């Protein structure tokens, strides 16, 4: 794998992602053969095909890819900053904070007949609000920490508040109406559902901003691989860099979670798959991670809407089904190439 040049490898991954995209756009309740998908994509298809592709399938496909990219990048940054291979967006308390926002929203705005008294479109806002409140709490605790702001302590505050948020969610689900509990559970698992181009644009804008920041600080990302002392001696302001990347990871997670719910596992595993397929010290590691994350969530969401059709499963329940076998296979394959 490592004998292939870096640009070729990244191009191959991008090609795979495009292929998965085309397939995912084709499958569904009214399946389209590949040639009609491609025709619709380049604007030469029949009107009906173009409606299906451009207003129904593509926004959802794009949202899945972009959310996956944001979560995967957040995971890679967190693993770098904390130098911990099991760090993932869920440990920052953001995902669970967003969950508190959503469950509280469903609870407060339900009437006696279990109907929502306000539009469901406010739900992402509730999620973002919850994420914001909990990440602000983590930040305040970390900033006021009398013993300095080491990443481990920030993570411990994050885990603590995540546990608190989970407790709040459980209590609200048990005390609240059962029907709402089921609905909240679907959201907590993460599901893409009906997506609009406006949602896609929101996540895309955030990703572009993050990419700009990462392009400016790319060298620092690689230097953080070194242990703190060595990194400092190569001229990195370790503490400040860690905080910047941590903040970026928070923002990326909040962005993704507010749109697609608490999709798990991607942030944890995408960087490790990228490590096997591409190499974590190689140029383009973050790009590879992002593409793998996008492909994972897209694969999970496509399975979610086709596996038990017409019932839709939450995509978050399937990210592990898609990603775990791949990762375990790579883990076992590594032995044959190195051992």
């Amino acid at each position, binding site marked *: 794998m490592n004998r292939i040049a870096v640009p070729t490898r990244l191009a191959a991954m991008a090609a795979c992602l495009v292929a998965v995209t085309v397939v995912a756009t084709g499958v569904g309740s009214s399946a389209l053969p590949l040639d009609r998908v491609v025709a619709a994509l380049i604007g030469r298809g029949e009107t009906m095909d173009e409606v299906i592709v451009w207003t129904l399938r593509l926004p959802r496909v794009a949202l899945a890819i972009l959310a996956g990219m944001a979560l995967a990048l957040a995971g890679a940054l967190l693993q770098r900053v904390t130098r911990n291979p099991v760090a993932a967006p869920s440990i920052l308390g953001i995902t669970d904070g967003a969950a508190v926002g959503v469950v509280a929203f469903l609870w407060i705005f339900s009437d006696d007949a279990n109907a929502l008294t306000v539009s469901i479109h406010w739900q992402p806002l509730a999620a973002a609000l919850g994420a914001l409140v909990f990440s602000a709490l983590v930040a305040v605790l970390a900033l006021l920490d009398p013993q300095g702001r080491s990443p481990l302590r920030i993570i411990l505050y994050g885990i603590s508040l995540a546990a608190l948020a989970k407790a709040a969610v459980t209590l609200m689900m048990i005390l609240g109406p059962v029907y709402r509990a089921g609905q909240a559970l679907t959201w907590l698992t993460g599901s893409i559902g009906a997506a609009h181009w406006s949602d896609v644009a929101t996540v895309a804008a955030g990703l572009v901003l993050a990419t700009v920041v990462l392009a400016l600080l790319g060298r620092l990302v690689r230097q953080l691989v070194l242990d703190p002392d060595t990194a400092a001696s190569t001229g990195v302001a370790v503490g400040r860099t860690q905080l910047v990347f941590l903040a970026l990871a928070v923002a990326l997670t909040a962005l993704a979670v507010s749109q697609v719910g608490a999709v798990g596992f991607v942030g944890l595993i995408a960087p*490790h798959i990228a490590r096997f397929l591409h190499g974590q010290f190689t140029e383009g590691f973050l790009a590879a991670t992002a593409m793998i994350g996008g492909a994972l969530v897209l694969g999970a969401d496509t399975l979610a809407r086709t596996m*038990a059709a017409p019932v839709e499963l*939450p995509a978050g329940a399937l990210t*592990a089904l898609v990603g775990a076998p791949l990762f375990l296979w790579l*883990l076992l394959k*590594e032995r044959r190439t190195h051992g």
Partner: protein
Amino acid sequence: MKKSVTILVLVLGLAIIASLHLGLNVYAPAAVLSALGGADGTDAIIITSLRIPRTLVAICAGAALGLSGFLVQASTRNPLAEPGLLGINAGAAFSVVLGITLSGSLGLAAIGGLALAGGLVTTALVFGIVTAAGRTAGPGTTLLAGVTLAAMLASLTQVLLLVDETALETMLFWLSGGFADRSFEVLALGLPSLVIGLVGALAIAGSLDVLRLDDDSAGALGVRVTGIRMGALALGALLAAGAVAMAGPVVFLGLVAPHLARRLAPRATSAGQIVVTVLTGASIAVLADIVARLIVLPGEAPIGAVLALVGVPILVSLLRRKAEAVL
């Protein structure tokens, strides 16, 4: 160290006494004493067949989870590690949900047995994968393989629950763990693994001290690094599987108890930390169980939620103090 052990024993003792008195019915000390002395009547039955078992289960599960967390953190040198990362909770939950889906309904003892089996099989799978991955695999790989397998099983569990909605309500409560309505049979399921785990942990405590150094120095001092690490992980897995058989997947305790213990006795040897961790885990579990029966009367709150409500403020306040200033 001695001071913190004394304080913890006192806290645990008081918590146990409180646990027998408090609940939906609050009893006077005289009633509890006469029940313990073998008196008859509704109150005595409630105390001997409900309060005593749940208190014992809380003590055992809390101690087992705390110790399990300590072993997993020590052997992987990863402060974020906890028993759940080895896939035990997910494996237990999956086998229980599968059992309920296939057979309709199950008693708590049957659920406990399924959970124990599921947890142990999953751990065996994780170790199998790590062994198959060969010499490049360290404790980091073990955690990653565990997390991955756990995520896969959790997603299968979720799919099962989404398909079978009747199981959802029963499972939602079991999945958040708890000590209520446990019988002595359930206790018998988890107790052997607690005893084996505790004895085993104390037996390798000396090597765990050396393991705090880096691998090369530990090896130079004559410790079989890989063997000890894998042994500690296996003991941790056994302890957690026993706990999940007794109380369901109780989260957070395995992570928090070792951190609290480290704060309470910062300079203790591994043997000392094992004792402090066991006492800390048991105390938190009993205290959380008391809170669980009191906060949503006449119902009960899930223990996982209460553990977070009780544990998080303690953890945060300890984190904010200088290590030397504690006790």
